[in-house]
């Protein structure tokens, strides 16, 4: 099971849990699994067939470029964060 850190505004969907576990060979499947245990969380993260604009995925401390297609393993830790721009 992949470890998922839940940002504070989304913990309302995970019964205030900051860290949860879920399976899935990629981020898309992971989110689908999260939705089964924590209904409503998918709508925050996914829009149509893509990661919701403005959401980025940090995989083991590094930002993923692959969005929902990012492959996962049980050793991975995933964090969902806002996408950013700079100055």
């Amino acid at each position, binding site marked *: 099971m992949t470890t998922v850190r839940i940002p504070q505004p989304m913990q309302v969907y995970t019964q205030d849990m900051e860290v949860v576990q879920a399976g899935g060979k990629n981020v898309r499947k992971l989110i689908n699994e999260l939705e089964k245990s924590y209904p409503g969380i998918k709508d925050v993260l996914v829009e149509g067939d893509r990661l919701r604009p403005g959401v980025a995925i940090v995989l083991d401390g590094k930002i993923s470029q692959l969005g929902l297609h990012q492959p996962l393993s049980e050793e991975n830790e995933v964090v969902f964060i806002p996408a*950013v*721009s700079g*100055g």
Partner: protein
Amino acid sequence: MNNPEPLAKEFRVLGTRPIRPDGLDKVTGRALFSDDFYLPDMIHGRILRSPHAHAKIKSIDTSAAAALPGVRAVVTGADFPPIESKMMSQGVAGMINIGDVADNCIARDKVLYDGHAVAGVAADNPHVAEEAVNLIKVEYELLPPVMDVRTAMAADAPVIHEDFYPGAFILPTEKYLPNATRMQMGSGDLEKGFAEADIIVEREFTSETIHQGYIESHITTVKWDENNHITVWTATQGIFNLRDLTAGVLLVPMANVKVVPLEVGGAFGGKERMYLEPIAAMLSKKSHHAVKIALRRDEVLRATGPSSGTYVKVKFGAKKDGTLVAADLHLAYEAGAYAGGPIFLGAISSTSRYNIPNIQINGFDVIVNKPTMRPYRAPGAPQALFAVEQVIDELARELEMDIIDFRMKNLTKTGDLLVAGFPCAPIDTVNMMETVKAHPHYTAPLTGENQGRGLAYTMWFNLGEASSAQISINPDGSVQVTTSCPDMSGTRMTFAMQAAEALGIDVEHVTASVGDTEAVGFSLPTVGSRTTYATGAVIYDIAQEVLGEMSARVALLWETDSELVIVDKGVFSNKEDANLTMSFHEVCEKLHETGGPITVHNSKSSQSFIPGTCVHLTDVEVDPETGKVDILRYTVFQDVGKAVHPDYVEGQMQGAAVQGIGMALNEGYFYDAEGHLKNASLLDYRMPTTLDIPMIETVILESPNPAHPYGVRGCGEHSIIPPPAAIANAIHDAVGVRMNSMPMAPHKVCAAIKQKQAADA
């Protein structure tokens, strides 16, 4: 996770100080800036701007303007295709509401700030265009303006947008307040944390809207031809960003838009978006001429993105041994007329440099009747640090601890979890603090009355993400590096240096340039201190491919296997025969007979959230009669990973510090009660000059960044962050008053001193 190891290798090129290739052209006026650019059939555009901060547009009559001799075209919002208010994703770089971008370029139904574009005119010369603009009649229905975050967040505040997308962060989709949305982050248990504290400090702070203050205005030339192709010649931070936004607003294919970058006369985040191109393009389409629009300074200040004014409330708790145990922050940032200000970056930079086990950050992105806020070099961070570093200073002094020792007790180190929820990438924060403490400035005696010393510490995170580049090897041994990140700070030379280092040749043989959107592949804009780092990383990778191809050519010449050919410092040799060598130049001379010149192109995404640290130390003298603050001494310490060109790095440190000092002491927009900007000139919007500031000393630290082959960290933004807090702490050290409002102009300092004197009496 361990601190980064020092780089073992010695560099031949990195760390030297070659003369920048664009320097001579820039100081002799030969460099081609946007205002120097002309086309034979070019005509001139001017823009009519709203004189009101908030109003409905009831009607626009352009007939008199169109009838003026010399006028070739007139446009209003009605000439532009309707855009749904939809989010245009830019991958990990964020998202943009293209509907808001279109509306900001030219208003359709409502004007949302003093200076909002309402119509455009193109004419044979700028004077006719200006006269025509003044003939356009607009009927407005005035609405109450909302000019600051606290007014905007009141429950009964006038509503600026009935509906708006919450902005670039994870949120429920409903609005939190009439003109604001909320972002939250944090961890732990605040109540428990504050219960453990031996000392608690709670303070409120405000700051004004400020402008990036680039010396060059916004100027663009656009041609929309009969084949539905649009070409833009302008100074921009992001050629692909500008291409995509122009295409998105005008509803043309992205491949039909070409952006040609010109020299940039300062930007600092303010030229990363788009203002003029849709109007210039539509005027070009209607007139069948290229159209140039050049903004006056007052237009730049009224209508191009400044940086957020703020209201910040913070509460920190610590134990008597100096351990921070809890922090509660409310950060309200102006977003301007449309959602999407720097709230996320402000929030993560507010406290990431300290380990605080119990922390809650409530960040508010607040819509007000001001121009849309744009990034200004570490967007959001100076305002947050102004608050937090003063409270840290106050806690340390209350506990009678050395101000560096207090910070060292709570430092975020490599691997520690950041407030955003992921671990801090490798960086040596302890060495930064130890270096500052050992520096002579830290212990030099202050010799006069009303003098004080202050310090502020920041950790900022540079971006990485996508960059593209191309390296061409010529038969005469010269090398051409072409990239797609505009040069704002000498990055062409840093690309040439990194290419020379990687190829093992002298930098004199390398020329670097910036191509247009049809020349080289996609790069994100020159933003977020990413360019030397991310584009340098892809240049390194391409150089390895080049050396591989050159090795194959050498193998061909030697009639041997390519596995036997090795290359080091520009010399190719044979593993099995020490007498067989060829120099880089000699291989180049044989390119035509071994397959032709070599060109390699590649794209790469580099890691983001690379930490960089910075400490500023300053001595000030305060005149208690006038409140004027003179800076006596200023030292900047910054960890840049590896300084590719130390002159440029020092320039970034000093330049950013000066901007932060201006923010701290002088700069701020002044609006009247109706929402009109009253100081829309550089005479009244007071930026520091060389007469205001002493020489800024710089100390470069290098804890290598493992995510870059040469250890480079981004360095362009960090030094704008600490000055307001460092100066505020120095003012307190000098005269015993805490300044809670930026800019800390003389009348405010004077008032604070008088208030203290009255309280002490």
